[in-house]
């Protein structure tokens, strides 16, 4: 449930100026423009959240 809420917040946040500010390239990170590294970070976070959910589902399967 907590992971679902986090995923929901990340989903909504992905479409806000937090991730996609219009016309903004700063601050850079390792030479990458803002939207690029932020987008990359969001992708990695979604994979990590998916991994977290899969671990919980696995535990539930074993409990069954």
């Amino acid at each position, binding site marked *: 449930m907590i992971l679902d809420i986090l995923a929901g917040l990340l989903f909504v946040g*992905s479409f806000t100026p937090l991730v996609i500010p219009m016309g903004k390239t700063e601050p850079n990170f390792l030479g990458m423009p803002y939207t690029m590294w932020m987008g990359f970070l969001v*992708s990695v976070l979604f994979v990590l959240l*998916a991994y977290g959910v899969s671990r919980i589902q696995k535990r539930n399967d074993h409990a069954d």
Partner: protein
Amino acid sequence: MLTNFLIASAIYLVVLIFLVRRTRIKDKTTSNYLLGGGNIGFVMGLFTTAATLFSAFTVVGMPDFFRTHGVGAWIFLAVSDTMMVYGLIRVGEILRKKARHLDFKGMSGLMVSTYGSKFAGYVAFGGAVVFLIPYIAVQISGISIFLNAAFPDVVPVWVWSLSIVAVMIIYSETGGLRAIMYNDTLQGIMLFFTIWIVGYNCIEHFGSIEAMFEKVASVNQELLSVPGPKGLFSPQFFIISALAIICLPFTQPQISTRVVIMKSSSSLRKMAIGLGVVAILVILPTLFMGMYGAVLYPEASTQDFIGHVLLYDQAAGIAALGLIGLVAAAISTSDSQIFALGSELRSLIHIEDKKAISITRVFIVVFGVLALIFSIVSTEHLVLLARTSFTGTAMMAPMILTGILSSKKLSLLMPISTFAALLFFVFSKLGWLPSSVLGLQIELVLFGILVLAVVLENLVFGKKFAPK
């Protein structure tokens, strides 16, 4: 380069023939032919799903998207793909349980069972046919035109198209879904290595990723932020794309079948996580290719740019591999889509299994031939349907997800409203109906209405029809 390409093609075909012989099925049943035996492990599941998901669009369209519209293309596909992975893990297991319970043969058949009405199945099948065949056709025609441009005057464009469709149909007919999955694995590995070699060469040109972005900034600063130089990447565009892509595992039958036939829940979870990692790793080199094009070929046509980045700017061996990788990407998606349309049809037929399989095999050829014809006589309307393929099939998501997730006896509200939404969507794309309402794009409006229908179904109609 023709010699290199022919040698690479010959090796590729030999491996294909070997795989076809290994996977050949003599006594074909729905289980072993259409569902690949239903016992797919994590590694093969990952490769076949990835190869099916990452089409020629990934190799051609994504570098071009980065080149033309900038880094926002990452949000459009990579972020949406990883969102999809989360959704797949969340809903995939429920789909698998329902599929086992209702003797899954295809999503259309599953809709007939869950809604208790053939109409729901016809809507799911019709939606798949209307949007997938143009998509397959446009992929085949795009690759054929590209091959013709790479080797002018060797054979006409239609011969390239015919060869691609013939290869797909032969191995699909011989070994069924398992043959397709083995070939997907081969094609997926090839696509992955090719795209990374080309991507690495693109970074090498600049010296480093930092230098690459600096150079892009000096050419066109707007490429480094949203909405991009042409203003394409608006929040609405991203939301619509994300919704369409998140729904793919349930709205595109070639992917939902793979979800259902995974060996175990554990295999599905590993496959989904792997898919998220692969999505990032496959899309990353297309960013490098796109930025390379933005600096060196900003004004070139898509075909010219792809020709340079994949072929003319690469060593001869890599160029041949690039071409084969491109063909492999198109084939691995198209064969699965054609085959999935056959499976969908099978799931709607209730006759003896052997007869049903014979009919399905005939229709797999028919769907292949239709795609071939449309690829040769590609019209503006077909291209439009192909371009909107993912969004179009996403219109079916509320109906399909309600069917999968609901435990109530369902009314016909969802199938009817989905049918109406699909018609409205197609007509608005054709310019016969408005494409936006109060500043909202029609896709979002229709999706909103369908979500409202889901609420009504669950709160009003579902209860009303629920068994006592």
